[in-house]
């Protein structure tokens, strides 16, 4: 097989695992073989060991038959005809010749023509060495070109967005990138322009290819026409080493391969798995490897030198002393206030092993206050509902979207559901406080003002048209937190309203952080609102916590009630932080332990479906940083508990042995299953959502706060290629409401709530609902979360002019 990019085999994993249901007998190069009904010749031939050269064909996109490279002889009884094997499906008794003299002549001829205008700059081309054009020229080409005319000339690579360059001289016009933009991403911002021999791919003047998925076009380009800035000229493919892993930038858990050279990460590429990402990645996941290589990474443990006073500073120390000091802090807290005075927040950014080891440590010393979420998610009990997988959602008759804007938070889930809607398999019913990326694909989309979700949902789901639709087949609810300025209880009430109307529906939890489901299922979940993150922070703020352990958690930036977080970090007597970077929160810590990052440690992760798959180490951990599980094990030892973990494999084995949901998730089983192994935890009964009475008040607008793909999260902020893509803080309002405020678009105004006020730029946006205003979460600039009060179901505000 000649193809160099691993996600492009014509045989998808689905085909590899499902047996042929209805076999069609065909004759392939004289051999009688079985093909599947509806299978393309190119795929059937590949399964039977005949690789047909190709360029435009991509198994995840519709065939266009453009490059003509895959032409073979096909005889359906009327004599052999030349046909592109990527367009023709097998039929009974079809005779196919993939390398008859005429087929070979065509394949050589097409290659010569493809190369006619292709520059000879392979030695300086990023793709050289992994280039399908280069490879297939050697395997199927004539070896020389008679083309002595002048080649087409274009300005050498032009940027089509911040990270992707296009070299139109190298482009062979296979329509892969443009088809991706159209069919897969739905961002038709690159297009064929001009005609015939002068055709080129380009954007509209001054309208860049602003897509969250733009990096995919680099990966699927079969030549070096599209290159990614973060990788350009960094390495030659033959110097690259690679290992498969699972992206943990969000909880979708895309299968990827990690590429490095000389112990330096160079790029991530998508790997095609049927159940999850189909080979795609979002740009945040693809390009945030830069943050792992950042010079700002924490390299050495740090401790606060003097006794807890604000003006003292942290200084570097050895691991042995840092662990010893941490153990003293834990012991001191136990002595002073008992296990109840210790809180453990975080773990959702870790591996299963890291989360489990910390949960074991917490068990050993009796810490009950632990929560992998930061008041920004859903009660852990939703994981105990009847769960759905991504593929179940993407093939259900109806999907009810309650969660966040999937395009912004779980981008590949967005692609999968968009595909389901576009291909008319699935009808999407969306309930949301704002227009989302999914809205334009939704069959029905209902906007509701924060707080009114449950009644709007109940009413809508009683509509006869919707009842009929719901009766048509499976229903999956995508449940999560769409509005961070509305309480978890409100999100829960919305979910309950759907379940009341559609009790048989299954749930796909739309929680965002990479391994949040793993952490919740492995012992860092919290079922009691008396010990969850918000109550822990309140306890800290009230001076009731002796020790707060932040396991990769940054409450100052991640907790929607930032005021609470600030008071908590000030109120906790001691803080220990395990992190990869110095953050606002680690600045308050007495001990900071540097953690190994993604690609620096091995283990497993659990995605939002409960799918357990491998994460693999590719490069040496930065500085002296260590994996979370190891830190937990060392700390336990220092406290006199032996967790029994000598290696990460021990932890993986312990999880499979001890956690019921993970019995199938042994190392051997995971390694044998390209699609991963499902682990579905069981939880207690869902809490009842408290009723909510709308109180009349003097505020005019209700606040909606939600995440954008690019925000101040360290993995984005520390990756120069994507850091600049964050939009920055601001607030959007419907143009008619803006008229009511009476200021010009873009004016700074004061947003006033019960808790305080912030000054933000006010921008007109017709997609915002009347009577609400929308602001992005965790952006550079004034912090809108200063208005959010975690005890209040909704956040009401007023807009005041500055002067």
């Amino acid at each position, binding site marked *: 097989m000649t193809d160099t990019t691993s996600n492009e085999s014509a045989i998808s994993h689905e085909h590899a695992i499902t047996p042929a249901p209805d076999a069609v007998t065909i004759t392939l190069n004289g051999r009688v073989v079985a093909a599947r009904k509806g299978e393309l010749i190119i795929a059937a031939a590949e399964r039977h060991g005949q690789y047909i050269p190709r360029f435009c064909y991509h198994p995840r996109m519709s065939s266009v038959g453009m490059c003509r490279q895959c032409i073979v002889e096909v005889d359906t009884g009327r004599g052999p005809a030349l046909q592109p094997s990527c367009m023709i499906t097998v039929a009974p008794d079809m005779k196919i010749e993939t390398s008859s003299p005429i087929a070979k002549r065509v394949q050589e001829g097409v290659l010569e023509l493809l190369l006619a205008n292709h520059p000879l700059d392979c030695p300086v081309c990023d793709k050289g060495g992994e280039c399908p054009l280069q490879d297939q020229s050697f395997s199927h080409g004539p070896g020389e070109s008679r083309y002595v005319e002048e080649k087409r000339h274009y300005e050498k690579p032009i940027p089509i967005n911040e990270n992707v360059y296009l070299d139109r001289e190298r482009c062979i016009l296979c329509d892969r990138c443009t088809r991706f933009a159209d069919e897969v991403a739905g961002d*038709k911002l690159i*297009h064929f322009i001009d005609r015939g021999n002068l055709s080129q791919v380009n954007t*509209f003047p001054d309208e860049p290819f602003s897509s969250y998925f733009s990096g995919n076009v680099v990966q699927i380009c079969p030549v070096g026409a599209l290159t990614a800035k973060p990788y350009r000229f960094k390495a030659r493919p033959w110097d690259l080493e690679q290992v498969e892993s699972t992206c943990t930038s969000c909880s979708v858990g895309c299968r990827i391969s990690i590429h490095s050279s000389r112990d330096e990460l160079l790029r991530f590429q998508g790997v095609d798995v049927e159940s999850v990402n189909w080979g795609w990645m979002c740009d945040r996941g693809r390009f945030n490897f830069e943050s792992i290589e950042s010079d700002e990474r924490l390299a050495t443990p740090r401790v606060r030198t003097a006794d807890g006073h604000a003006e003292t500073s942290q200084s570097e120390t050895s691991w042995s002393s840092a662990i010893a000091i941490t153990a003293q802090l834990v012991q001191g807290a136990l002595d002073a206030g008992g296990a109840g005075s210790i809180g453990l927040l975080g773990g959702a950014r870790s591996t299963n092993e890291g989360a489990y080891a910390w949960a074991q440590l917490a068990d050993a010393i009796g810490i009950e206050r632990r929560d992998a979420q930061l008041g920004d998610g859903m009660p852990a009990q939703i994981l105990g509902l009847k769960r759905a997988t991504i593929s179940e959602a993407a093939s259900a008759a109806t999907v009810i979207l309650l969660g966040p804007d999937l395009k912004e938070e779980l981008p590949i889930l967005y692609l999968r559901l968009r595909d389901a809607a576009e291909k008319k398999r699935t009808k999407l019913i969306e309930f949301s406080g704002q227009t989302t990326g999914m809205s334009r694909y939704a069959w029905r989309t209902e906007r509701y003002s924060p707080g009114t979700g449950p009644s709007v949902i109940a009413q809508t789901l009683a509509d006869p048209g919707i009842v009929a639709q719901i009766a048509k087949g499976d229903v999956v609810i995508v449940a999560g937190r769409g509005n961070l300025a509305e309480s978890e209880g409100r999100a829960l009430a919305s979910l309950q309203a759907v379940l009341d109307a559609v009790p048989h529906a299954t749930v796909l939890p739309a929680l965002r952080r990479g391994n949040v489901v793993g952490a919740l299922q492995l012992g860092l979940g919290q079922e009691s609102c008396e010990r969850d993150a918000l109550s822990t922070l309140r306890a800290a703020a009230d001076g009731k916590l002796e020790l707060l352990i932040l396991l990769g958690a940054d409450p100052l930036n991640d907790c929607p009630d930032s005021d609470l977080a600030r008071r908590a970090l000030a109120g906790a007597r001691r803080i220990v932080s395990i992190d990869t970077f110095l953050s606002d929160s680690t600045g308050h810590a007495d001990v900071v332990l540097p953690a190994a990052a993604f690609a620096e440690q091995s283990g497993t992760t659990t995605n939002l479906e409960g799918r357990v798959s491998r994460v693999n180490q590719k490069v040496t951990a930065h500085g002296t940083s260590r994996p979370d599980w190891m830190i937990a094990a060392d700390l336990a030892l220092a406290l006199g508990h032996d967790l029994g973990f000598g290696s990460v494999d021990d932890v993986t084995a312990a999880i499979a042995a001890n956690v019921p949901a993970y019995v199938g998730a042994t190392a051997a089983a995971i390694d044998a299953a390209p699609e991963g192994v499902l682990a579905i935890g069981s939880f207690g009964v869902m809490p009842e959502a408290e009723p909510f009475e709308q109180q009349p008040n003097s505020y005019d607008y209700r606040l909606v706060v939600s995440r954008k793909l690019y925000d101040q999260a360290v993995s984005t902020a520390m990756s120069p290629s994507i850091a600049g893509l964050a939009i920055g803080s601001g607030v959007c309002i419907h143009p008619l409401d803006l008229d009511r405020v009476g200021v010009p678009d873009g004016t700074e105004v004061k947003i006033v709530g019960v808790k305080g006020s912030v000054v933000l730029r006010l921008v007109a946006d017709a997609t915002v609902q009347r009577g609400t205003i929308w602001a992005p979460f965790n952006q550079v600039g004034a912090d809108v979360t200063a208005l959010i009060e975690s005890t209040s179901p909704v956040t009401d505000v007023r807009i005041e002019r500055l002067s």
Partner: protein
Amino acid sequence: MSRLSDVNVALAREIIGRYPKKKSALIPLVHLSQEQNGYVTEEAMRHVAELVEVTPAEVYGTASFYEMFRFEPTGRYLINMCGTMSCALMGAVELMHHAEHRLGVKAGSTTADGMFTLQHAECQAACTEAPTLQVNYRYRFRVTPADFDQLIDDLSAGKLASEIPPHGTLGRQRQHIPADRAVGAVHPDHVTAGPAWLTITESPS
């Protein structure tokens, strides 16, 4: 004004309304913008994109495929000289030389006064009347060098203004479907049954 004028927006909406899917109106609307502005501007393409609900890149991608759309200022009179076989056999090459000489510009360019853009064109479906040319897509047949000179003189003198509208104007007569007669365009997804006049004869299968 580069975006479509209010009058043209109204016309655009009428045109869009005739098609089961909006994007079908893309080419007619780009024509309309060219009629308004004399050529196709970026602003106009953005406006068309809004009207048919696609991206500007899609409008540009489609528009740039077609010969008649010009993306830079164009003479008031666009002279297309046919050079395909029948016309070539009947002296099109010589006629083009003459035209270049007479207008003082090379094919593919516009005279300094902005009156004439001269260009090569392909077969104009008037092969029996070779050599042919079109001025703003209005024909001249069996053109001799003398005919050409006369044509330029007449155009310059404004004598043909009533016959030949400025570049971009496609048809001075437009289709208007009276509302009370229109059957109306329906998105194909919303059509489930065969037409009424057939139901008697075609039984569903």
